[in-house]
């Protein structure tokens, strides 16, 4: 995984942009908790092979949560959540969901073996990798979704970055630092990455910058408006 610290960094920036008037320490803490929680699937790894990057890292559960949240707060006449929570925490829940999808799952999607996008409906890891450019020689080029046509048979092959399934893919993490199916005598080296690339350090810095800047700046227009 890009480390949890990177997710939190990007999450702080997004949360600061979305929470609006509800931005405060408690709301931030809840959003961060929602972002960090899915990493728990690392601990499921020893019991359920391939759980990391599948159970907590997919787009199905957030979509289901969004549908439930929408149904409960908008469509139902008597909302379970509205009865218990103020408007503020419903906004925080939406922001948490948004930030979880973009700052956690989407970033992991672009890293190592990717995430198990449609788990538990369809067990397959996908990886987001490629580039988009305009070239004077080739026109518009994008390599995220690779469509190849076989010149002989004319059949099309679409490569969206598919990888293996929970059976075959193991994404290393501090709980299971290497693929359990590998047998070696080397001492176990548990690595807790903080930032393995410049851009990951950058995302951490972005989040901290947003946090500090929000603390330094004043509250709002003072009398002079």
């Amino acid at each position, binding site marked *: 995984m890009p480390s949890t610290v990177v997710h939190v960094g990007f999450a702080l920036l997004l949360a*600061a942009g979305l929470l609006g008037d509800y931005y405060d320490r408690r709301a931030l803490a809840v959003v961060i908790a929602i972002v960090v929680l899915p990493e728990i699937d690392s601990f499921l790894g020893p019991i359920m092979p391939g759980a990391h990057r599948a159970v907590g890292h997919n787009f199905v559960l957030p979509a289901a949560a969004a549908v439930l949240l929408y149904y409960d707060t908008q469509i139902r006449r008597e909302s379970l959540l509205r009865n218990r929570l103020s408007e503020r925490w419903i906004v925080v829940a939406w922001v948490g969901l948004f930030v979880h999808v973009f700052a956690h799952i989407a970033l992991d*999607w672009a890293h190592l073996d990717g995430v198990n996008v449609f788990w538990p409906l369809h067990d397959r890891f996908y990886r987001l990798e490629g580039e988009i450019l305009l070239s*004077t020689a080739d026109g518009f080029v994008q390599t995220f979704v690779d469509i190849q046509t076989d010149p002989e048979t004319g059949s099309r092959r679409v490569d969206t970055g598919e990888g293996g399934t929970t059976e075959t893919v193991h994404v290393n993490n501090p709980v299971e630092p290497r693929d359990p199916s590998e047998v070696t005598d080397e001492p176990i080296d548990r690595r807790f990455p903080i930032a393995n690339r410049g851009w990951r350090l950058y995302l951490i810095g972005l989040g901290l910058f947003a946090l500090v800047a929000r603390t330094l*700046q004043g509250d709002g227009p003072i009398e002079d*408006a």
Partner: protein
Amino acid sequence: MAPTLVNAAVGVLLAAALLGAAFDRRAVVIVVAAAVLPDLDAVASLVVPGATNALFHTLWLPLVAGVVLYWDTTLRDASWLRDRAGWYGVRVAWVALAAFVVAGVGPELFGREGVNLLYPLHDAYYHVRGRLVFSTQEGIVQTFVALSAEGPGILPLQSPGTTASYAIPTWVNPDGRPGLSLGAERELYLVRSGWQAVVVASAAAVIAVRFGWSQTEVSE
């Protein structure tokens, strides 16, 4: 340069996070413009040798702007900016300045090309590359800050070269050297990797949510 689209996306995210009550369409446009501005030195590189990621990416520009802004809005008795544009203007100016540095220069500094941070006083490109890991076998491993880095730099960062030895190709200037090379193949990168696609998508989603919000609030 990192794709300008990525600079703009980070600018959008900073605008949403920091503008507060000054958040409106005009303010977002100003902040994003500030985030994109440094990349214009690629145009200057057609005339000035090695201007890409140097001329407008240098830290002296925002430093001077920051000092002037601080002096005008805090130290002076009557602020020129506040008289003209009020609280709104001061907030937008600070966020635009932050976007210039963080969104405009940052992705290049932490990316593959590097930035000539102290240009023109000291000519060397820098980039922040490396890793920061805690390992149970090796302890904390850190390679971002290199105290004894080789190269022309005086900052403790890796340096790929100077304006004379290191040219950055862009779509404006494919060989990175002065002169128009009209026949050359040009490539305008929009997104260069998966994480950049994620940042751009996040910015698009945030801006949609924020402007969608203010419209429903008005209509209610």
